[in-house]
């Protein structure tokens, strides 16, 4: 039987862990607010900042576009084919397009785009920031160079743009593939197709869809960087901070997905 002191110490450890967890989240929110303030400040947009922003946006999004588009095309074709064949075998072809749009465009593609943006853009950028902080002796990470504005904000903005761009392109490609798979290379099915898409994207669903993509983009752009920044700038701690950032990111993405499902189907 555990003694009262051990129970007390366990409780105290739990309370301390919870307080630390809350403190970390608060620091992430605070960092996000600082970055938002910087992004909304006109004085931020100097020539040097614009150069850094454009460079990070391009280097973050462009290399992923072709690969992700090919990946999305393959994934979409497979899922669309499965849905079509299944619906034909059950005599429910009139629901095939709606199901494709709901499954792929509303649920799978935004999630895939966010994860892909995280893997190809924001997590490597977080590692870069961690390396800059660790090797601050080279002069890139010191107070004189305003690292939050010149190093962090462009990378977060690039992550957001990357996630949004990948989601937008993949949704467009999926909608196009769905049309071609169902109607073929003809424009005759466009009115019916448009009507079905309009059915799916009711105002509530469209709002949830937009908020979900924006929230996921923000999560994958901010959380890996913020997890690195709130951790102490010691080499041994940074790897742990990157892992914590990944866990936080997946947790938030899961939360966003759950909330969107509740908003759409509850």
């Amino acid at each position, binding site marked *: 039987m555990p003694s009262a002191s051990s129970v007390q110490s366990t409780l105290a450890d739990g309370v301390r862990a919870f307080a630390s967890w809350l403190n970390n989240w608060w620091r992430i929110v605070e960092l996000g607010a600082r970055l938002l303030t910087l992004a909304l400040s006109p004085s931020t947009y100097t020539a040097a900042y614009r150069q850094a922003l454009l460079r990070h946006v391009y280097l973050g999004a462009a290399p992923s576009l072709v690969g992700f588009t090919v990946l999305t095309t393959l994934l979409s074709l497979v899922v669309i084919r499965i849905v079509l064949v299944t619906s034909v075998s059950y005599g429910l072809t009139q629901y095939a397009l709606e199901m494709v749009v709901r499954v792929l465009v509303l649920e799978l593609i935004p999630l895939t785009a966010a994860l892909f943006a995280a893997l190809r853009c924001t997590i490597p950028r977080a590692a870069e920031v961690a390396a800059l902080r660790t090797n601050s002796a080279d002069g890139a990470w010191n107070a004189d160079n305003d690292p939050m504005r010149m190093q962090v904000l462009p990378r977060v903005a690039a992550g957001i743009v990357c996630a949004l761009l990948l989601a937008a392109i993949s949704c467009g490609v999926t909608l196009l593939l769905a049309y071609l798979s169902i109607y073929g290379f003809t424009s005759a099915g466009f009115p019916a197709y448009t009507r079905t898409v309009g059915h799916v*994207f009711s105002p509530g669903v469209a709002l949830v869809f937009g908020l979900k993509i924006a929230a996921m983009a923000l999560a994958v752009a901010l959380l890996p960087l913020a997890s690195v920044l709130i951790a102490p700038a010691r080499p041994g701690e940074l790897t742990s901070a990157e892992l914590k950032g990944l866990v936080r990111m997946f947790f938030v993405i899961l939360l966003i997905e759950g909330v969107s499902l509740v908003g759409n189907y509850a």
Partner: protein
Amino acid sequence: MTTDHEDPASPPVRYLELKAALLLALLVALISGTALYLMYARGVFEQTQRLVLLVDDSEGVRVGMDLTFSGFPIGRVRGVELSAEGNARILIDVPRKDAHWLRTSSMFTLVRSLVGGATLRAYSGVLTDPLLPDGAERKVLVGDTAAELPILVASARELIGNLNRLAAQDSALSASLDNVKTLTEKLNGPQGALGALVGNDIDPKKIAAALDRVNTLLSRLDGMAAKADTQVLGPDGLVAGSRATVVQLNAVLGDARGTLKKVDAVLAEAQTVAGNVREASTDLGALRGEVDATVRKVESLVDEVNRKWPFAKDARESELKLK
């Protein structure tokens, strides 16, 4: 193109600003294009007119569902609300370009199927009727498959119950089948169908014996028939005799015919005699009249003599008697 703060490991990018601007422009174009397409798909840019359908129960009707005409969507449900009478009011926006399919005589149905949602359909029988006005209210005919299902299940249950009663161990059908089995066993037995008909083992033997006797009788009848044939149709048979008799009878009839002719002549003469007698009778009548007149004259003469007879003492005694 590089700045003081960029990663020295990254290579310089040519036309960085242009490429980045293109990416951002692509993002803006995709987002705005998607938004515009969704607004177009939702019918935001369409000119519509309102149609209100009234129904007792709006179950299955959801906002955004189509109103179809001949399988083509011509309207979209924009809302469902309760009326003051407690009915459901289905508010439908019909695009102006499709509104000409709806006429004042159009019928509207709400069909709830087992698979999939409910469907709203419009039927316009007479397309020359006036157009349906904006804001028109129409009643909806409801066809509910799900509501008919319990009735179907109840009927099926009743049918299954009847089948169970038919198939039960002590049912009439089972008893009938047992009887059929017994019958077929008897049919397959040594007595065959005869045993099944009479129901015991003794009567079939009697019937068989009777059949034997009938056979014997028939053979004797065959012999009798042969004999009768000889006696009737043979050379000295009844038929030949009858033929001779008929010839004789013809002769007798000829004689009779001659006799009858003679009788006819006698009768003609008798008729003549009768005519003469009738004339004689007429003459006798005249004669009798004359005799009667003579007698009356004699009687009157005698009466005159008796009155004038003076010597008679007793007139009554002495009167002359004519008779």
